[in-house]
């Protein structure tokens, strides 16, 4: 029998589940949220108290109603294990970024999906930001001529009231700001320009979790890019694209702002069309595409191949890391 809508479970009751997935999926007629799986009893209780009608289980095995799809929003190190378990059961999976901690794990996940005839999609929500789509159009249409270089600076003071050490424990997170935020940035670069070559990678870790990193990339077309990421300080949080005929600056966040400086010194401060009024919209769009991928076989904007190559690039960065000689690195 044809499925008419996705019956979803969410595995992992962390921040993104609480702030994004549950609010979108509860009382959404396009989806049926069957349950949230959260191992931590206190956390599960908290979610149950805060979302009326939410069913919580502490294990996937305890879900007694049938479901056909799952969102995997566990700590990073569990993405592979949980996704494969679900794929083997014939469940379609939307796995949060990063897809897994190694390219081998990504490949295994992809082949499990193929073997079991189910869909696997990776949550790369930035592809759904209007401003990022605009950038892609500008690059492809050569509106300002050929792209010459990109400079991306994204940083904020990280101080989330996280409930576990999954983001600061290398075994669980797989890394620091590069795998957490950089995975989004690299995915956008894949989306816009295809696979880059790694030129240099620097970070501030002592073989642990980096808080700052700097990545230099190049493309066969001659385009070069510098990406600076931080969890310790506020950076401009902008993407600056230098074209032959001008410079375009957009925010890294889902913002309407776009500044264009043309070669004739004309500066235009404008707004991205179709402004983002609902911060949840990119996530809603992503979920909608996941649903269409499963139910109608439509290709999603996000790409498993790109996600996998992104992880390969991140691994490559860590393998080739050099010390970042910044002020905070005292000795």
């Amino acid at each position, binding site marked *: 029998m044809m499925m008419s809508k996705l019956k979803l479970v969410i595995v992992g009751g962390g921040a993104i589940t609480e702030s994004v997935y549950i609010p979108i999926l509860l009382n959404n007629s396009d989806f049926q949220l069957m349950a949230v799986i959260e191992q931590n009893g206190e956390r599960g209780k908290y979610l149950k108290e805060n979302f009326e009608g939410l069913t919580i289980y502490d294990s996937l095995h305890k879900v007694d109603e049938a479901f056909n799809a799952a969102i995997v929003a566990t700590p990073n190190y569990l993405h592979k294990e949980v996704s494969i378990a679900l794929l083997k059961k014939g469940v379609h999976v939307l796995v949060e970024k990063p897809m897994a901690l190694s390219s081998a794990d990504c490949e295994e996940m992809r082949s499990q999906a193929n073997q079991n005839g189910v869909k696997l999609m990776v949550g790369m929500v930035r592809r759904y930001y209007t401003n990022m789509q605009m950038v892609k159009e500008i690059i492809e249409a050569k509106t300002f001529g050929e792209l010459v270089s990109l400079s991306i600076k994204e940083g904020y003071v990280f101080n989330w*009231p996280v409930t576990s050490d999954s983001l*600061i424990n290398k075994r669980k997170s797989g890394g620091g700001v590069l795998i957490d935020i950089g995975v989004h940035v690299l995915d956008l670069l894949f989306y816009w320009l295809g696979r880059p070559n790694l030129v240099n990678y620097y970070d501030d*870790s002592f073989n642990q979790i980096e808080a700052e990193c700097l990545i230099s990339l190049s493309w066969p077309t001659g385009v070069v890019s510098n990406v600076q990421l931080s969890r310790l300080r506020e950076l401009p949080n902008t993407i600056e694209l230098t074209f032959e005929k001008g410079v375009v600056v957009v925010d890294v966040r889902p913002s309407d702002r776009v500044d264009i400086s043309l070669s004739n010194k004309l500066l235009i401060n404008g707004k991205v069309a179709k402004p983002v009024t609902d911060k949840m919209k990119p996530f809603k769009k992503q979920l909608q595409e996941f649903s269409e991928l499963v139910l109608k076989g439509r290709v999603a904007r996000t790409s498993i191949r790109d996600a996998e190559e992104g992880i390969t690039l991140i691994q490559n960065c860590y393998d080739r890391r050099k010390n970042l000689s910044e*002020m*905070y690195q005292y000795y």
Partner: protein
Amino acid sequence: MIGGKTCQKCINIIKIVKEVLEKFKGKIIVVTGANGFIGCRLIELLSATNCEIRALVRNFGSSIRLARLPISIVQGDILDKESIREYFKGVDYVFHCAYGSSGSSQMRRKIDIDGTRNVIELSKEFNCKGLLFLSTISVYGLHGVGEVTEETPYLKSSDDYVLNKRAVEQLVTEHYLSSQLPAVILQPTGVYGPWAKSYGLKQIKYFKLKYYALEKGVDGIANLVYVDDLVQAMLKSVVNTNAYGNKYIISGLEHIEWKEFFSAFESITGNRNYVEYSGDELSKFYKMDQRRPSFLKALLGSLTVKKKEIKNLRKYVIIDFAINLFSRFSSKKLKKNLLSHSVEERSSNRNRVFLEGEIRQFYTTRSAALSRKATKDFGYDPKFGFKQGFEILKNWYYWFSGQNSER
């Protein structure tokens, strides 16, 4: 080398503490308040040697700096003894840097006293070799002139922070006297350096909005210590059995005056951080600025501002907010009349602040805190003069604020 290329001329702190760091090799060290400004810097230096560091934090989310280092970050509440017991197993040295920095007055006192008691009891239970408690120079109160040493009496105080620190000192001393607890108390002066809040980021934020109106020829002594000098004292004292049962003032290499301190920040803020007036001018301007509250009362009606009940600094924020609000809706003539006495503030968009009461006393006190006892007993040897320490703070701030982010 401290820092990168911007700081190559700086003092090599690792070289300075190399000898004492050797004493921590193979040891198990617990640091409470590990993600604070001082705790984190201590761990950065300690992690240069081969020891097992257990960094106790309340929130993993604010442990990003620590997570770069090869240490164990453990979550626990010092008020819940059982929740932190396992981290004290086999411990050699404890650095107790945690204190009640937020929450209600009662909660802060509870964290300070009950939390310290738990740390003491666990340290005793696991036969810890040395404990270090961070107190503050503020326990002595504001002595007008002369030297402040460990013999200086504590003045009467109603400040919760001071009272709690004194209570903690008493608790530690009682345990030393009753059971030879191998504990040392350090009383640092104002600690500054990269990541400092009170004597760093907060000052910068403050001087971006305000400046001081100070009296010509009147200045107080700034008792300050650069963070790495304090860490040097922490490392040296906790392993020194002669230090146990004692309290030590930890001050910097030199004493400067507050006007020099305020001026130093001008290189960061780009503004004059104080203006000097003669005594008469100061009184005149002070009276002018004091007129504002009565006007504010009339303007806002229901919003009652009781001059005596609100603290000086807060008062100015409220007043300026009200004037700005009023300015939007008032005629040019009325605005001109109203603000005629505060042209200076308006031209710079920064608020003039007069020092009053305890704040004035703090910034005009001419007593110098001395670290002679620490030098004599455990070889404390401060290395950072103010100019040198501030240069590091400044370069760090440029990096932190994204003004100098090149690799």
